[in-house]
C-alpha cells in the first residue's frame, strides 16, 4: 500500500504550494501585529509620548533624512533612530531582521548598477570584467541605502511603539479626513477577520484533500478561494454598514480624542522639527 503524505516529501524537506505559503504569510502577518501590540505596551521612551507629537516628530526626522546631502548627518540620524529604538525597548535583533536586512537587499539590488554607471573617480575595478567602481557611484548608493534604512527604522518605530488605534486618532486630530481614518481603522479591524476566514478555508480544504493536487487544480483552488474571500468581504462590508446605520451613522464618523501632551512631548517635537529645518536652512 502506498501512503501519501501531502505537503512533504521523503527527503524530509517540507514542500509548500502557493496556497500554503499564502496562509503562512497571513498567519505571519497576524503574529507581527501581535508583536507590535506587545511592544507598544512596554514602558519605553516613545511609548509614553503623545501619539500626535510622535507622528509629527518622526515624520519630521524622516523628512530630514531624505533632505540631507551629508552622509555624516544621515549617519547621525540613523544612530539617533537606533538610540530611540533602544530607549523604547524595541529589539535590535528584530529591527535588523525585519527592517535593515530587507531594506538593504531591496534598495541594494536597485542601486548596485549605480556604483558602476555614475561617472566619477574610479576607486576599484571588478576582477575579470574590469568594470570601474566610482567614488560618486558608491556615494549615491550609500545615500539611497542610508535614507531608506533611516526612514524605514523611524516608520517602524512609530507603528511599533504606538497602538494602531492611536495612530489613527493622531492622524484624525492632525486633520487627515475622518472618512480616510475610518477606512484605515476598518481595514485594520477586518483584515484579521478575513485572515481567520482564509486560514479556516485552507484548513477545511486540506482536511478533505486525499492526494496532492496538480498545478492546474491548485490554481483553480486559489482562484476559488480568492473569489470566496471577495464574496465574504462584500457580505461583511454590507453587514457592517447596516450595523453602523443601526447605531446612528449618517455618513460622518465622529471619534473620541483623549490624548494628553506633556512638556517633554513638546520638547521632542521642537527637537525633531529642528532637524529638517536646520538641514534645509544649511542647504546641505
Amino acid at each position, binding site marked *: 500500500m502506498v501512503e501519501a503524505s501531502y505537503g512533504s516529501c521523503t527527503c524530509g524537506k517540507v514542500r509548500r504550494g502557493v496556497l500554503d505559503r499564502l496562509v503562512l504569510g497571513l498567519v505571519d502577518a497576524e503574529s507581527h501585529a501581535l508583536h507590535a*501590540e506587545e511592544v507598544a505596551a512596554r514602558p519605553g521612551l516613545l511609548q509614553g509620548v503623545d501619539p500626535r507629537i510622535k507622528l509629527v516628530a518622526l515624520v519630521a526626522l524622516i523628512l530630514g533624512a531624505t533632505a540631507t546631502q551629508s552622509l555624516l548627518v544621515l549617519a547621525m540620524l540613523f544612530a539617533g533612530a537606533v538610540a530611540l529604538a533602544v530607549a523604547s525597548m524595541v529589539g535590535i535583533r528584530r529591527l535588523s531582521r525585519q527592517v535593515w536586512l530587507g531594506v538593504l537587499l531591496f534598495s541594494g539590488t536597485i542601486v548596485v548598477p549605480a556604483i558602476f554607471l555614475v561617472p566619477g573617480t574610479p576607486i576599484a575595478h571588478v576582477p575579470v570584467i574590469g568594470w570601474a567602481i566610482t567614488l560618486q557611484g558608491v556615494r549615491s548608493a550609500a545615500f539611497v541605502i542610508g535614507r531608506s534604512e533611516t526612514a524605514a527604522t523611524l516608520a517602524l518605530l512609530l507603528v511599533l511603539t504606538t*497602538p*494602531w*488605534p492611536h495612530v*489613527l486618532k493622531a492622524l484624525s486630530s492632525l486633520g487627515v479626513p475622518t472618512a480616510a481614518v475610518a477606512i484605515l*481603522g*476598518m481595514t*485594520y*479591524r*477586518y483584515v*484579521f*477577520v478575513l485572515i*481567520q476566514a482564509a486560514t479556516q478555508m485552507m484548513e477545511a480544504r486540506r482536511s478533505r484533500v486525499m492526494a496532492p493536487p496538480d498545478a492546474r487544480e491548485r490554481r483553480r483552488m486559489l482562484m476559488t478561494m480568492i473569489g470566496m474571500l471577495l464574496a465574504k468581504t462584500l457580505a*461583511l462590508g454590507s*453587514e*457592517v454598514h*447596516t*450595523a*453602523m*446605520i*443601526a*447605531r*446612528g*451613522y*449618517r455618513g460622518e464618523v*465622529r*471619534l*473620541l480624542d*483623549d490624548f494628553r501632551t506633556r512638556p517633554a512631548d513638546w520638547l521632542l517635537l521642537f527637537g525633531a522639527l529642528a532637524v529638517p529645518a536646520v538641514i534645509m536652512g544649511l542647504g546641505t
Partner: protein
Amino acid sequence: MMATAFEFKDVTFAYRSHPALNGVSFSIRLGERVALLGANGSGKSTLLRMMDALCFAAEGTATALSAPLTEAAMQDDRTNFAFRRRVGLVFQNPDVQLFNPTVMDELAFGPLQLGWDKPKVRDAIAAMLARFNIEQVKDRPPHRLSGGEKKRVALASVLITEPEILLLDEPTAALDPASRADLVGLLAREPVAGRTVVTATHDLDIVEDIADRAIVLSEGRIAADGPALDILHDIELLRRTHLIFEHRHSHGGHPSTAHGHLHSGIGPAEA
C-alpha cells in the same frame, strides 16, 4: 393603557424571490419582554431587522413608536435620529457589530453619532465598562476578545445610549455554557423599568429568564403568540415548529433501557 412599541399588520418581505415574512401581524406594548422563537430560517432575524428599520415591509404596514417604519420616513434625518436614539439592536455576529479599532471606540461610537458631548460620552463609557466588567479589555481591539467578551462589549455598545427598546438577535449563539449563563444573567438583571426587550432566539433554555411573552415564527408566519410559559409547555407546537426534537438512546448500550427524550429548552420529557 401602555403605549405601543411596534404594530405590524399583514407584513410581507422577500429576499429577491425567496419569501422571508408572509402576512405577519402582531403588536408589542412598551415595557414588554418578548421572545421571538423559531428554527433557523423562520424569519426571526429579518423581523428583528425590520423592527430596527434596516429593511422595510414590501406589503402591509409596520409602525414603531407610533411612527411608520418605511424607507421614506427614515430618509428624514430628524426621524432617523429620533428612532436610533430610542431603539438599539445587538447583532447576532459580534464581528459585524464591533467595527471599531478598540473597545473604548466601540462604546463611544453610538453616543458620538447621536451628538453627545465628549465629557458625557466619557462618563457613560466608564459606567458601562464597570457595569459589564470589561474594564480590563477597554484598550483591546475586538479581534483579541473571547466570544463571551465580544458579546458583552456588543451589548454594552448598544445599551450605552440607553435605548427604550432593545432588540437582541440570538444573544447566546456560539457561546460556551459559562459565557451563556453570564450573558443571560446580565440580560435578566438588566434594569427593565419601562424598557422593551425583544429577543430573537431558538435557545428555549433562556426564554423564561428574559421574556414574559413569546411569538413563535415558522416559515415566515406567526405560528403562536402568548405567555412564554404557555408556549414553552406546548410540546406539540414546539415539535411542529422544529424547536424541539425527539432523541432516542439507551444507557450502557442495554436495549432494555432504550427510551426517548424531547430536547431543547424545557428539560427532558418522556416521549
